[in-house]
Every structure is written in structure tokens, then in C-alpha cells.
């Protein structure tokens, strides 16, 4: 188990290196640097700025310097927010994004698994159809449609919750963004759980458990649920990546000061260092979380544990 984790962790390194390299060169070959777009500066000032950002050195030197910086958590200065380093901006935004994303993920898991299990146990009942219809809606509606609609209904028409903003990050500010982020994943996880639960309940070992005279709730929770959760656990990797990507648009809509918002601002302003920093940070996060998911899978299914 330990060596498996270690091997997987080592496997992450080359992938990260690829990401950093691709991102770096993609941006450096970009037509037009960040300082050409505003107004033309006197040549000596431009040279000064370029020197300050190392843009006058050969590409390889820049690359190695950048790589060294990334290893120590230094993504360089932001082009746009000139008083801040990229690391500082990420540091400021991450707690907010984490709070949103983790809440959404947790809610999606708990509600999705519960709804899916209930639907599977009452297969083809009215309840089952209701859950599946709602789930279809959640899957078909993208979060950038759900989010403004939620804001319109609960924020403007009903005036129950703030339309947008993040005054102190309290409950009221969280409800709408977290709901918009979680809904598609509640739907997806519910469908996934239902499907695999129906499959598992037909399997031979469930028949054995029933033949043993165990109470039905024990059959479901102890024998069926863990097996039925395996596809859900596999989905957690893509779901994490999806929630992180989704946070970009959700933070934009609800004006939440998280990493995603910085990222969009950075992208619109061609703040290359900021964009790259966020990409590398999130790529690392996604890969580490994927690793955690794989380990979790091994915990749930002893058959993969010793391979």
C-alpha cells in the first residue's frame, strides 16, 4: 500500500513537468507580450521592465529560472497586479475557492449517493422517476445557466439571498454559489449510484447476504453500498477537476474573490504569469487529489490493494 502510493506520487512528477513546459512555451511564443497592448513606452523604459521580468534573457534561461522558481513555490510577479506576486494572489484566493469547492463536493457526494441509493431501492417507483428526472435536468443544465437563474429567482424575485458578493464569506453568501456548483454533480453522482446499486443488488453476494437472514438495512449498508460506491469513487477524480473548472465561472458570476476569478481576470488582461501560476497550481492539486482518490479506491476494494 505504502509503496503503491509512493510509486504513484513519483509518477506525478513527469506529468507536472510536461504541464509546466507546455504552458511556459505556449505563452512565450505568444504574439504580443503583456506590455505591448497598452501604450507604446519609450524604449529604455520598456527595456527596464523587460529586464525586471527577465524577458531580455534567452528563452532557455528564462525557462530554467521559472522552473526553479516553481519548485520553491515562486511563480514570479503578476504582470497586472504589480504590487503582488502570483503566489500571494493564489494564497489569498485559495481559502475562498477551497471553502466553496469542498462544500460543493461534500454536498454533491452526500446527496448524490443518498438519492441514488433510495432510487435504486425503489426502482421504477414514482420516487425513482422523480429523482431521475431531476438528475437529468441537473446534468443537462450547465452551471453558468443555473447560477444566474438561481440569482434571478432567489436573489432578485424572492430577495432571500444576496445576488452576488462575498462580504465575509458567511452562509448567506455561500448558499447560491455552492448550490450552483453542486447541482450538476449531485445529479451525476445520483445517476451513477443508482445504476451501480441496481447492478450490485442483483449480484450473487447480495443473495448470500439475504440468505444469511441479515436485516435489509445491513444488507444494503454493509454488503452492497461499498461495492456500489466504486464507480462513484472513480468519478471523484473527474468531478474534482470539473468542480475546479466550474469554480472559474461561478466565482465570476457571484463575484467571489477566489482563484478562479483571478484566473479569468488574468486571462482577459493577458497576465501570463498569473494564468500560468494558476494552471500549474490547479494541475498539481488535481493530480494529488486523483492520487488520493486512487488510494481511496484501494481501501474500498481489497482486490486492487495488493497488486
Amino acid at each position, binding site marked *: 500500500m505504502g509503496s503503491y502510493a509512493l510509486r504513484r506520487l513519483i509518477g506525478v512528477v513527469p506529468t507536472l513537468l*510536461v504541464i509546466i513546459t507546455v504552458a511556459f512555451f505556449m505563452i512565450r*511564443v*505568444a504574439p504580443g507580450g503583456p506590455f505591448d497592448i497598452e501604450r507604446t513606452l519609450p524604449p529604455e523604459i520598456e527595456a527596464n521592465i523587460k529586464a525586471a521580468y527577465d524577458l531580455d534573457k534567452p528563452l532557455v534561461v528564462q525557462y530554467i529560472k521559472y522552473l526553479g522558481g516553481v519548485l520553491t513555490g515562486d511563480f514570479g510577479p503578476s504582470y497586472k497586479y504589480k504590487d503582488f506576486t502570483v503566489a500571494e494572489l493564489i494564497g489569498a484566493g485559495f481559502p475562498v475557492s477551497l471553502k466553496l469547492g469542498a462544500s460543493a463536493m461534500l454536498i454533491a457526494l452526500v446527496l448524490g449517493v443518498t438519492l441514488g441509493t433510495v432510487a435504486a431501492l425503489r426502482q421504477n417507483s414514482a420516487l425513482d422517476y422523480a429523482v431521475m428526472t431531476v438528475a437529468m435536468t441537473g446534468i443537462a443544465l450547465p452551471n453558468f445557466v443555473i447560477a444566474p437563474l438561481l440569482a434571478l429567482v432567489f436573489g*432578485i424575485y424572492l430577495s432571500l439571498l444576496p445576488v452576488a458578493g462575498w462580504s465575509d464569506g458567511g452562509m448567506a453568501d455561500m448558499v447560491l454559489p455552492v448550490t450552483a456548483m453542486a447541482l450538476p454533480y449531485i445529479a451525476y453522482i445520483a445517476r451513477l449510484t443508482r445504476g451501480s446499486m441496481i447492478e450490485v443488488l442483483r449480484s450473487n453476494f447480495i443473495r448470500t447476504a439475504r440468505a444469511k437472514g441479515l436485516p435489509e438495512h445491513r444488507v444494503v449498508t454493509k454488503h452492497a453500498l461499498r461495492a456500489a460506491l466504486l464507480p462513484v469513487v472513480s468519478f471523484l477524480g473527474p468531478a474534482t477537476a470539473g468542480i475546479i*473548472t466550474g469554480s472559474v465561472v461561478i466565482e465570476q458570476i457571484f463575484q467571489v474573490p477566489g482563484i478562479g476569478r483571478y484566473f479569468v481576470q488574468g486571462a482577459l488582461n493577458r497576465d501570463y504569469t498569473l494564468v*500560468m501560476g494558476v*494552471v500549474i497550481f490547479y494541475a498539481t492539486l488535481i493530480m494529488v487529489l*486523483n492520487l488520493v482518490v486512487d488510494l481511496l479506491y484501494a481501501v474500498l476494494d481489497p482486490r486492487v490493494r495488493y497488486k
Partner: protein
Amino acid sequence: MTNGTQAPDMAPPVRGRSLWQDALRRLSHNRAAVAAVVVLALVVLLAVVGPWIAPHAYDELYFDHVAIGPDLDAGFLFGTDTVGRDLFVRTLMGARISILVALAATSVSLLIGILYGAIAGFVGGRVDNLMMRFVDIMYALPFMFFVIILMVVFGRNIVLMFLALGAVEWLTMARIVRGQTLTLKNREFVEAAVASGVTRPRIILRHIIPNLLGPVAVYITLTIPQVILVESFLSFLGLGVQEPLTSLGVLISEGADEMETAPWMLIFPATVLATMLFCFNFIGDGVRDALDPKDR
């Protein structure tokens, strides 16, 4: 004896056809899927011919009708936006762009994915290992961020968007095709072709690709809505389609900004997008169930 040697060669096409007929029959019994096909066909038809026959042009400004709600007398079915353009024709235009991008990007991803997967699966061995390892690495990348970087770096260009979306969506296709190729490779009719000296590219083209149609059909119905979604997502953020062209994502974004004063600007494009995505999802489910009935 003669029968015995002919059978493997004859069997696949015959089975293939009846499989498709079967699937079509099952699909036509799936009421949700049939309804989705009808609704989607209507939306697509409107999107294609609507902008030509509509009374207003999508970029024409009506200064005396700025941001009015749906008004049949003035001929604005969905109302107008904040600079006085007809929202109905703009929504159809947006749908048209979305569909166009989806079709183009899906074709790009199909082309790359099928070729890549078929080659990896058919050649096998170390090449296969290497090629699939590359796909694994690409999978681990947060591709949406890369598309965004691409759009930032090379400007917000619609052709580039086809290519960028196609270039990230092919991974799944490559995996499916490789898996199918591996299982097909060892089937009798391919072995027979190899034994009778047919060249490799010919085998890939004539024998393997036709047999992939089933999974590919499922993949297409799932990828098109996926691409529409990503395109809208990018446009929503202001990184996709640019003025004066429009797409559903752009319209929804504009609508979200004005939802307090002009909610119709949000509601109509959002409804059209949701309808299209709904239909594709139902069709996708239907096609999957029809081709693989045991999956239900």
C-alpha cells in the same frame, strides 16, 4: 467444408446490419429519445434557416426599441437587447454558431481519435504502450485551462476554437477505439484478412473502422453537447466568440448582466441552450441503450 471457411468472412456484415436494424427499432420505441430527436431537429432547422427568413438582421440596431420585452406587435418575439437588436434572431444565430462549433470540433476529435486509437490498438506492443501513456498524461491535464491559455495566447478566433476543442476531446475517442480494435483484432474475420495478405492500412480502413461505428455513434451523441457546453462556457467568460458574431454563451452572459432589468435576455437563450443539451442527453442515452440493451 466450403461453408466452414466462408462463414467467418460472411458473418460480420450480416450481423452488423441486423444489429443496426435492431438498434434502430429499439431507439424508435424509446419515446423520450424520439421526442428529443424531433425537438432537436426543429431547433436545428430554425437555427439554420431562421436567420435568413426572420424579419430582422442579427446585427441591426433599433434605437427606438432598446431593451424591450417580448413584443409581437413590433415583431420582436424574444424582445431586444440593450442596444436594440432583435433577440430572437440573435438567439437563432447563437444556436447556429454553437451547433457549427460542435460539429466542427467533434469531427476534428473523431478524426484524431479514431486514427490514433486504431493505430495504437492495431500496431500494439511498445508503440501502443507509449501512445496510450501519452493519452493518460493528457487526461490528467486540466484541459479547460489549456484551452483558455490557447484562446488568450492566440487571440479569440473561432477556427482556433474548433481546433482547440477538437484537440482536447479526442482522448476518450482514442481510448474507445483502441479498446475496440484490440478486441476486434483477434476476431476471425480480421485474422482471415491478415492471413490472405491484405495490407495493414487496408485492414484498418476496411475491417476495423466499420466495426467501430457503434461505439462511435454513442460517442458522437455525447461529445456534441459536451462541445456546445465548453464553447458556451468560454464565450460566457468572454474568451470565445466575439462581437458582432454571437453564441448562446455570449447571449447568456449578456443576459446575466442585465437580468435585473431585462430578464428575457437571460431566459430565452438559456432555454434554447438547455433544450438542446436536454435533447442531446436523451438521444445519447437512447442510442447507448439501443446499441447495448444489456446495459439497462
